[in-house]
């Protein structure tokens, strides 16, 4: 299973005089998993013997799919979720609006074919989009570049 370190959610872990400070960052503003991640971190670190566990949130710099490690990408693909490509590069000026069919080439994680189409930019969670392979006809999820 992908770890929060491999997803780039875990930003820092530091021991100090009387305990441990863990720093995490949310993937999306409304991500409900952060509460559970914090609870799980506290439990795991208490079990490891720390009495004082401080879980902190950082918002800056904002989370990006570029922080997902190679190992993380491998695990996502193995689970049938197409890993993200490079996040959109930001240039000066307003963020451009792209109308028209999705220009990104996303390969099918099952059969490897490059001919896939976007069904919806939002799937079971905000971070994933729903796509379909035109070759093997299977739907699959793709982690959205952000």
């Amino acid at each position, binding site marked *: 299973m992908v770890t929060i370190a491999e997803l780039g959610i875990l930003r820092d872990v530091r021991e100090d005089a009387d305990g441990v400070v863990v720093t995490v960052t949310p993937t999306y503003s409304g991500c409900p998993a952060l509460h559970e991640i914090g609870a799980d971190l506290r439990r795991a670190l208490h079990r490891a013997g720390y009495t004082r566990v401080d879980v902190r949130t950082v918002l800056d710099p904002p989370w990006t799919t570029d922080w997902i490690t190679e190992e993380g990408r491998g695990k996502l693909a193995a689970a049938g979720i197409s890993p993200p490509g490079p996040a959109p590069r930001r240039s000066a000026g307003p963020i451009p609006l792209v109308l028209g069919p999705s220009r990104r080439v996303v390969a099918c994680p099952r059969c490897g074919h490059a001919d896939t189409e976007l069904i919806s930019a939002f799937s079971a969670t*905000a971070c994933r989009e729903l796509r379909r392979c035109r070759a093997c006809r299977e739907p699959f999820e793709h982690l959205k570049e952000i």
Partner: protein
Amino acid sequence: MSFDDAYGALTDHDDDARWAYGTGFTDPLAGVPTEVPAGVDAADLAAYCLMLGDDALIMSHRLQQWVTRAPELEDEVAIANIALDLLGQARLLLTRAGEAEGEGRDEDALAYLRDATEFRNVRLAERSDPDFAHLVARLLVFATWRLALLDRLAGSPDPVLAAIGAKGAKEVTYHREYAAGWVVRLGDGTDLSRQRMQAAVDAVWPLTGELFRPHEVEQRMDMDPSAWRAEFDAVMTEVLTVATLRRPVGGDVAGYGRDGEHTDEMAAILAELQNLKRSVPGGVW
């Protein structure tokens, strides 16, 4: 306890008294520095965070009302996720507003215990959608305006607002793309879909004037919305042109949500949003 077995995790009995979907939501800004930086007026910061937070909260509520009513399952899921992104932004902004205000009000107190006249959202956010075309027209306007706003907010002297802006802009980029795609499909569709899409754009347009009327708090926060009117107009013109729709002219309605002047629709939204919390004073999950 691990994430490997989600069902096992749900029945894991320890002294953490949670039920399936989580309770006791932690402060979304836990560990984020709470001081108001020098050079930023705390009262203005609180008021401005309320404005942006209320925009997101009320818009999210309207979007959530489309769950079980969307034309396709995939759109229902998309709308729910857009609403969730906005709700997350609202939580961050309302929490920051409460901190800057310094009177002990947290995100829940602000969301659930204020009356309509104390809400600071633009009236575009509270409008109900008679059909899906109205929804996508309203979301296109809202997301285009909010994206330009958040992008500019990323340069704010308040580090928390700047972080919310930078993060939110990436999310709202996808909201705008979703709405624009639908406006184009419905506009450049059949005669009937174009007629209904045009009617929706015409109905929503009178509420756009208010988006660019600068409030003194916005001006003092260096977030005068007239600064991104040109960018908004350029995107709207592009989308309406590709959608083969007419750009409506004029028709601004009187009233100003930023000063608490809301439509009758606000009462219905707040009744649904606040009823449970208000009927059990001091109650917790």
